[in-house]
């Protein structure tokens, strides 16, 4: 339309950053420390001792393949590294849209010549950038820790990077779910019920499915299964799963925009 009406509004972005940077910092620090600790405590000499003991038994095949990355895959990349970003996403996504509509402070933004689409795009941009930077820091910290502490080990860097890319894409998809409900609902409590309930249910389903083979059926009901760490480490074809995560995220972010542009705001 007219000049000076960019799709991302610098003023709103600045305010959003100011209001949310503290929470982001806390979660980024926690996530990074967890990554560093999990990498650092890995000690393959203890595993070697154990494998020596079970030599020739059925367990040997299992333990024989335990590497740093497979250990991380079954711990950090399926529990800690998943649930902490999920909590961050839930809190942030709700505060970006739904809580401002619920409290009424959105009225001030909309009483300026700012388009609804600009607000949504700016807030979504913040959430995505916050996640990108969070995972860049976490990945870099993990990589440095590996280089410093496990320089003697033979670690496939590409696999380590792909684990982080996969985790990020999973979080991108999950953030789109929370953001969609934040844009769709007028009440914080509804936005949280769906925007938190669904990601947490996905997380629990994934956890259950990994406990025992008999519960494997749960993996069909969670998008977390699309972040397939085994496939990444074993070199199986995992690309399509990551592309599905990316696609889901993009679709839901676009849906958030369309829904918010059309809905009635009780301001």
């Amino acid at each position: 339309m007219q000049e000076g009406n960019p799709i991302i509004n610098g003023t709103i972005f600045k305010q959003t950053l100011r209001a949310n940077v503290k929470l982001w910092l806390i979660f980024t620090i926690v996530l990074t420390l967890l990554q560093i600790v999990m990498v650092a405590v890995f000690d393959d000499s203890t595993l070697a001792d154990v494998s020596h003991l079970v030599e020739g038994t059925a367990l040997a095949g299992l333990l024989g393949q335990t590497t740093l990355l497979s250990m991380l895959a079954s711990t950090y990349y399926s529990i800690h590294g998943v649930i902490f970003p999920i909590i961050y996403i839930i809190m942030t996504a709700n505060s970006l849209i739904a809580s401002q509509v619920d409290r009424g402070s959105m009225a001030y933004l909309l009483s300026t010549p700012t388009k609804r689409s600009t607000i949504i795009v700016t807030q979504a941009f913040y959430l995505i950038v916050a996640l990108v930077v969070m995972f860049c820091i976490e990945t870099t910290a993990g990589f440095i820790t590996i280089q410093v502490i496990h320089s003697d080990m033979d670690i496939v860097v590409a696999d380590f990077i792909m684990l982080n890319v996969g985790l990020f894409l999973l979080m991108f998809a999950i953030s789109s779910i929370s953001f969609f409900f934040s844009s769709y609902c007028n009440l914080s409590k509804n936005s949280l019920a769906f925007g938190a309930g669904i990601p947490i249910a996905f997380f629990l389903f994934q956890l259950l499915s990994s406990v025992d083979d008999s519960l494997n059926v749960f993996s069909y009901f969670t998008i977390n299964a699309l972040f397939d760490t085994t496939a990444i480490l074993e070199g199986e074809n995992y690309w399509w799963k990551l592309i599905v995560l990316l696609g889901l995220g993009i679709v839901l972010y676009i849906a958030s925009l369309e829904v918010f542009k059309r809905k009635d705001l009780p301001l």
Partner: protein
Amino acid sequence: MTIISLQHVTKDYGHGRGIFDISFNVEKATVYGFLGPNGAGKTTAIRHIMGFSKPQQGIVTVNGLNSWTNASTIQEKLGYLPGEVALPEHLTGEQFIRMMMDLRKVNDDTHCKKLIDFFELDASGRIKRMSLGMKRKLAIVTAFMHDPNVLVLDEPTSGLDPIMQQRFINFVREEKKRGKTILLSSHIFTEVDATCDEISIIKDGHVISSFNKLELLKMTEKVFHVKVKNALDYKQLGQLIESNTDFHLVNKNESAFELQIGCYPNNLSRLIKLLAAIPILSFNEVPFSLEKHFMEFYDRRVGGELP
């Protein structure tokens, strides 16, 4: 010229709540008052003017532009004061003002400074710690900072102290003189009385009465307070008034020799002629109060007519 127009606007929230077939126009450089009890639908109508809600039926325009499809364009020349102040609490007042100036692309802050001084706003502290009145002043300054042509004010003086209320009323009058078009919702009769040209009363989502204040004043009976010297004059005047169908005796106080005479404006000179024949101690008009007029509507069922 019509600035704000609602034509047959309906928004049904269910259970008989919402607004139903509301129509009115606000003309340029006038102040339009919107009165009605709690839950009548004032804020709902304003929500449609702002483009926050889409009407189920009917059309809302501001400056000829559809409020729903052109919301962001309309805001360039519109100032809005929400009924509930829900400011972003993590900011200080100054940061909030700066943010709103940036969003409105206002570079010159002289007008804003003038408003801050006029309303004695102290914007330095955190919004979270501000008193209700201070928050409202901040919202007022924000609504007027870009010197908009159209103002939509939802209960603007609630939370202000009496001195500030008066100052705000004077301010609204000045803005009207400067050609601003103002829609104002309120519960305070004196405020509406002091500022508005046109008034609509809304109840249960229906406009039950719309009138022009000056025309209403012309139409309504005026009441005069007359005091005479002695019992003889008192009795004579009383008889004269009661025998004449042009006037009517509103009230009398025999011991003080005082009478209150009701008279429509077109019979006024006849009343003066009649009074000229009698020695009178004092003669003054009892000021007309819209309040009495409004109160009837607050109680009356939907569909009430002007008397």
